[in-house]
């Protein structure tokens, strides 16, 4: 089997402007929704109590809501979770009331209303923990960005590092934009998925950059644009197949992983799809506009004898 029977290099870079305009618009839309709607943060970040209860018959959300309201707890969200029998109740942090007891109070009230209810899980997070988690999440993001840029700058050149990180951060913003637009719940596992996607889709750019460097060495006569086109064309088959395989795994999570893994898998799906787009079309184009040259990449080998301390000296690719 062979899906990709490409006779000639596809002139991707000729349309670089169009691709970048598309991704620029998506990016702006994502930013707009992030600010206008905001993320629907989970209890882990906001603090509060979350209860998952299960009924023997499909649950009546309105009755549950009024039962909980009757306890004097405000801003309660009640929704189905996975199936009609399972219900998720979300309560904000109550001032003065030790919220650890809150879940028991609610469960007792629900039990008197319908004896068939069973508690599946509860989660209580104090407000101070939530703030810390948000701060830690941002630190992790900063760390990933800095680490990847540093690595790419050492391994390739700063222009590639900048291009790759712009392309992939724009993926992250787009994932967040989706979560803001649909008001999907943004929880800790989703954050983990977002950061994993960041590391993963940088891969993609790395593979293409690797090929660009190799082409610079091999085809002396081609200009930068042709070299990039050739690099993307010759790696596109691998790109699609790899992402297809990863997506197959994620799809399996989406189908079999249940409600807990749902948003995690969803974040990965969006990340993988946009990851392909951005690393192929955006990263390479940005690198081209930043003005990568043959000399940038192959001076390392030329200087081999002068600089014995260069860690990349003599590296063959």
């Amino acid at each position: 089997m062979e899906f990709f029977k490409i006779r000639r290099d596809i002139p991707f870079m000729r349309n670089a402007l169009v691709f970048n305009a598309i991704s620029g618009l998506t990016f702006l839309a994502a930013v707009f929704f992030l600010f206008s709607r905001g993320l629907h943060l989970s209890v882990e970040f906001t603090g509060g109590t979350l209860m998952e209860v299960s009924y023997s018959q499909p649950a009546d959300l309105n009755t549950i809501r009024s039962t909980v309201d009757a306890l004097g707890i405000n801003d309660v969200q009640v929704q189905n979770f996975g199936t009609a029998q399972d219900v998720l109740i979300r309560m904000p942090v109550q001032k003065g009331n030790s919220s650890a007891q809150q879940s028991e109070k609610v469960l007792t009230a629900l039990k008197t209303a319908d004896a068939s209810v069973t508690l599946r899980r509860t989660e209580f997070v104090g407000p101070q923990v939530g703030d810390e988690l948000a701060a830690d999440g941002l630190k992790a993001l900063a760390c990933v960005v800095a680490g990847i840029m540093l690595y790419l700058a050492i391994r390739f050149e700063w222009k590639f590092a900048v291009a790759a990180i712009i392309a992939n951060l724009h993926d992250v913003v787009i994932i967040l934009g989706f979560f803001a637009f649909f008001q999907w719940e943004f929880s800790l596992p989703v954050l983990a998925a977002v950061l994993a996607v960041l590391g993963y889709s940088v891969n993609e750019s790395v593979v293409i950059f690797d090929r660009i460097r190799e082409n610079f060495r091999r085809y002396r006569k081609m200009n930068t644009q042709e070299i990039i086109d050739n690099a993307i064309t010759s790696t596109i088959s691998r790109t699609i197949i790899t992402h297809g395989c990863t997506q197959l795994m994620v799809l399996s999570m989406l189908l079999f992983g249940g409600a807990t893994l749902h948003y995690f898998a969803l974040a990965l799906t969006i990340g993988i799809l946009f990851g392909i787009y951005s690393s192929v079309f955006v990263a390479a184009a940005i690198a081209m506009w930043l003005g990568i040259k043959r000399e940038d990449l192959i001076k390392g080998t030329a200087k081999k004898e002068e600089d014995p301390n260069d860690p990349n000296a003599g590296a063959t690719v």
Partner: protein
Amino acid sequence: MNRYPVWKYAILLIALLVGGLYALPNLFGEAPAVQVSVAKTGMRLDTAALGRVEEALKAAGLTPDALALDGASIKARFSNTDTQLKAKDAIQKALNPDAADPAYVVALNLLTRSPAWLSALHASPMYLGLDLRGGVHFMLQVDMQAALSKRAESLAGDIRTTLREKNVRHSGITRNDQTVEVKFSDSAAMDAAKAIIQDQFPELASTESPDGTGFKLVAAINPVAGRKIQEQALKQNITTLHNRINELGVAEPVIQQQGLDRIVVQLPGVQDTAKAKDILGRTATLEIRMVDESAEARAAESGSGPVPFGDERFLERTGQPVIVKKQVILTGDNLTDAQPGFDSQSQEAAVHLTLDAKGSRIFRDVTRESIGKRMAILLFEKGKGEVVTAPVIRSEIGGGRVQISGRMTTMEAADTALLLRAGSLAAPMEIIEERTIGPSLGAENIAKGFNSVTWGFVGVTLFMCMYYMLFGVISSIALAFNLLLLVAVLSMLQATLTLPGMAAMALVLGMAIDANVLINERVREELRNGSSPQAAIHAGYDRAWATIIDSNVTTLIAGLALLAFGSGPVRGFAVVHCLGILTSMFSGVFFSRGVVNLWYGRQKKLKTVSIGTVWRPVSEEQAPAVQKGK
């Protein structure tokens, strides 16, 4: 050129064997079990206890699948939950005749069914997190400010006593948050006091501060001492929690320090959060009372008479009854510290108590009047008292430094000190995070995680085999080997596996195939460019290697950042993610190359390799079958 030396195959074989061995226990599943451990510090489990468990089971007509004394606990495994529950009751009755005062914790647990020889190799199944096995998770924040204030309060009292003893006149001592303020009317007194504080209270750093017409000395707990107080408060709280959780009968409780002022408590299998919370938040109290040594009391002690009026009967830890007066001399509030040590003269094991100023004063007065008599230190928990120790007063004790010695081993001294300290919490705690996962949800989560990994794996494998033919089969074998290694490493490290961890496992398998896709595509490309099959395999692996390293390093950077900053579910994800990337480099490149070399490497005149269609733009029509697979 495509041959591996023998040692490379040896490494692969060893990795396969070791990986298989350590992944093996996961296949056996878990069986219901009863676990017995000691409820009180200082007691040891021995073969005698094992014998009693054995007898109890025999008497009840139950035969365990396995029964062994394993370190700090006795574990008995049963074939079903029914016998497990019966056995628990039987063992409970045999070991704890007095239900109100259990000496052993008898808890239900799940144990691996893997045979003894595997356990002997320390091969055990992966450690499942709470979201997979059900249970309760608490994170408690220790109020360190309260601990420091408490200490400052007792120091204020001590300063008052000391200044009085040294005849330094002051015009008032107050505690202001975590500092002690002493006012004076003349500077000479202030200087004297300053010298005394510097000399006798190394914990304090005092500074002069003008106070209207008078003089004021502000003594603050210095940072070093402050840190020590906080550390001790945390340790004491952890010890107290340990003692209390023992009563809950949890098989494998986790009580850990997290950060500087937090404690994480995980109780697998516990569903009754209300009870757990009640026990965590309970306060124990310590009381010092006099032992009644009248003839009536002696008679009551030996059981031949009634307990005299105004007295109460308590048991010592050895079971010896002690009759003490109802009047309380001191409470645990006056006890600031208890440490094991040695008597400076006789070199006997001893417990050194430190009392605060008020406590020292009362203690001095009481001891002066009761030399030769016994006093009892009682610990009340759940409204039930127990005599920790009942020493004889040898002399008047002033200064707040009390030593209990005689008839004690070093171990006993350490345990008594621990009990005295752990009786109460050093500082109040607040639950800042709580998670409860029902047992059915845990089982469902395992099934969900397992299904995600399995079906994803099947899908990827099928696709690879169809698209790359034999090379796809080899890639799939390498992927399976990766999964085996990952499970083996997780089992070896006993890292906690959670649902996000299982998601990471699925994800990392999806990413790991990337290495093989890169290699296979590269080999095809080389073939397309007209290389001979052997050269194509060689170049494909070599060229793809640099790319694989680059892409894995970037993924690993993300994984490590998650590991460094993540907590809870994110950490579980990150651990598996990072380990998975490492194992995938080994299996995807080294292992798959090994299999390819074994298959193709020997054939000198290799004409074709089975890697699916190698499509050539130029000679497509004329020679379509040259490099075509089977």
